[in-house]
């Protein structure tokens, strides 16, 4: 009987990445609200304070804009801050420093400085957190030049990509997901990193390409299983990197299947899906056998009520309907 491999939570994978990088490089430090003893709102940094103490884990006052700016200044001086924004919804408060400092400084100061900053933050809805604590704001960040944006969906990706993000010399927004924290997966033995700019083909298929990221990638995988019996063979591509987008992988999949559905948890209008669709419509039009479809959250705030929330978020039925439409086109 083969030995069972240990399964780790997504939150543990993030924690391990932080732990290993803190141990590896003493320029790495964590900055954020309640990340010490409390372990962060979702327990992700638990245990690290006890191990690394006050110098390396800095608990901040509630001052998102300035502690992000402080991290930018520290990064310019050679440190490698990993900032936590407790809920992605609060990133708007720090946006000036991301847009006008972090993303621009390397360019506008003519490469005299770099900003090796990681900003970790959980997006997404998790059952009743309400309008100000549930948003997937990936599209708010997309198009800010100079930022890298990643949104891993499994523990393995999360750990490898976070370690890579911390070692990267650019500002990286690392989008976690409240719904993913309690999901589990295996982790490779020993040290590894994963590239920040590659999509991953989660499951090859030949009929329709589902393109997604973060928690919705897992939903897409489940949908693939669910429709297999109907004879539909879906290809599931996990973007992982939202900026830059891995155009090569996207185009290869589209050219293979000719049918595309983009699924995301952000609002539909102006979402990451819009950019993906636009790229496909520019570069793969000849390969398309059906319209490019998108399933995403409604263009509305996310209501608090558990019952109402599901209507606003993309539901399995929405995805299934779109798949059917693509199949029948």
């Amino acid at each position: 009987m083969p030995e069972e491999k240990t399964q780790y939570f997504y939150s543990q994978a993030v924690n391990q990445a932080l732990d290993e990088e803190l141990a590896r490089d003493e320029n790495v430090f964590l900055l954020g609200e309640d990340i010490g003893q409390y372990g962060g709102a979702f327990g992700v940094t638990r245990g690290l304070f006890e191990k690394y103490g006050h110098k390396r884990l800095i608990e901040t006052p509630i001052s998102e804009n300035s502690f992000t700016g402080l991290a930018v200044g520290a990064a310019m001086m050679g440190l490698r801050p990993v900032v936590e924004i407790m809920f992605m919804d609060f990133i708007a408060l720090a946006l000036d420093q991301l847009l006008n400092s972090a993303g621009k400084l390397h360019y506008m100061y003519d490469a005299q400085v770099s900003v090796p900053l990681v900003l970790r933050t959980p997006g997404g809805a998790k059952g009743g957190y309400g309008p100000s604590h549930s948003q997937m704001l990936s599209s708010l960040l997309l198009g800010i030049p100079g930022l890298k944006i990643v949104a891993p969906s499994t523990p393995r990706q999360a750990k490898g990509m976070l370690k890579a993000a911390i070692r990267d010399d650019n500002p990286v927004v690392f989008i976690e997901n409240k719904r993913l924290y309690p999901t589990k997966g295996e982790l490779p033995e020993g040290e590894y990193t994963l590239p920040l700019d590659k999509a991953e083909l989660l499951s090859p298929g030949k009929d329709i390409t589902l393109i997604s990221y973060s928690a919705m990638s897992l939903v897409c995988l489940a949908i693939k299983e669910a429709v297999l019996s109907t004879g539909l063979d879906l290809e599931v591509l996990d973007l992982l990197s939202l900026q830059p987008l891995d155009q090569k992988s996207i185009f290869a999949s589209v050219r293979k299947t000719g049918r595309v559905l983009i699924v995301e948890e952000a609002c539909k209008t102006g979402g990451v899906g819009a950019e993906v669709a636009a790229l496909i419509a520019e570069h793969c039009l000849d390969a398309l056998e059906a319209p490019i479809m998108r399933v995403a959250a409604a263009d509305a705030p996310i209501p608090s009520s558990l019952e109402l929330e599901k209507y606003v978020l993309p539901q399995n039925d929405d995805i299934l309907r779109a798949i059917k439409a693509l199949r029948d086109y």
Partner: protein
Amino acid sequence: MQPDPEKLLSYYERMQLIRLFEEKLAELFASGLLGGTSHFCIGQEAAAVGLLAAAKDTDWVVSNHRGHGHLLARGLDPARVMAELLGRKSGYCGGRGGSQHMCSMEDHFLGTNGITGGGIPIGTGAAFALKYQNSDNVAIVFFGDGASNQGTFHESLNMASLWSLPVLYVCENNRYGMSMPVERACAQPRIAARAAAYGMDAAEADGGSLLEVLQAGTEALKLVREKQRPFLLELHCYRHCGHSKNDPRVYRSRDEESRMQELDCLKQCENMLLQRGLGSEAIAQARERARLSIELAAKEALKAPYADSDYAKGGVYA
């Protein structure tokens, strides 16, 4: 100002109502009937009740994430507040808002707010409007010690003072912002002392004492109303509960907690009522009335229906 005993008893009942409301919420959480999270104000009831008792009913209230006390102290219907928490159509916001985003314009309650510090400019704007409209109402903005470190605190208090806006800033300093002790978050942990940076008057009071809050609130509101000047009132409080659901409170000792439990505002209030000649029977009756009203509220709220999909996705634009 010495409110008569009956009034005081009614305030006590209101405080009990808030306490029991949240204890009921805890039950609902435990039995899986309540989703999301929410922030209890157990221990801080005197601040909410005393302050809003000192206010006119037509003064406008802006609250933060820890708003149940403010909502109920303002006189909102507990059944509808609970329905909102349970996500029902009959809730004050139809289930869209929930605990952190609840509003009742007919009660002059401009809303709770999930963004720490986010309500401070909004309340300042309400005061701006009141002045613009030559109203003699004022705006009351509740926030915590932690929120006083947001840029909005600084920016808003500055504008309020510059423009002489009729706004009372009420900082409920409960010693922690989530897990963060105020001394580690505020370089000047006496929040009231920060008012001087804006040429603003300020005062402190014991938020655990209903009478002190009543008195400090009355004085502060009088100043705001008469001088048409902003004022910062710091109320020293303690929340006996965790920050939100599932907070194991590792950041403070059980010892500290039990010491503070001794000073619980409800206990203090009961002693005060006894001293003023109210019998323990009257007190028990008030408590019972509160209990009944919460039981009824919960029952009503739990059977209320949910809104539908159209309601969830629609209504984004006015």
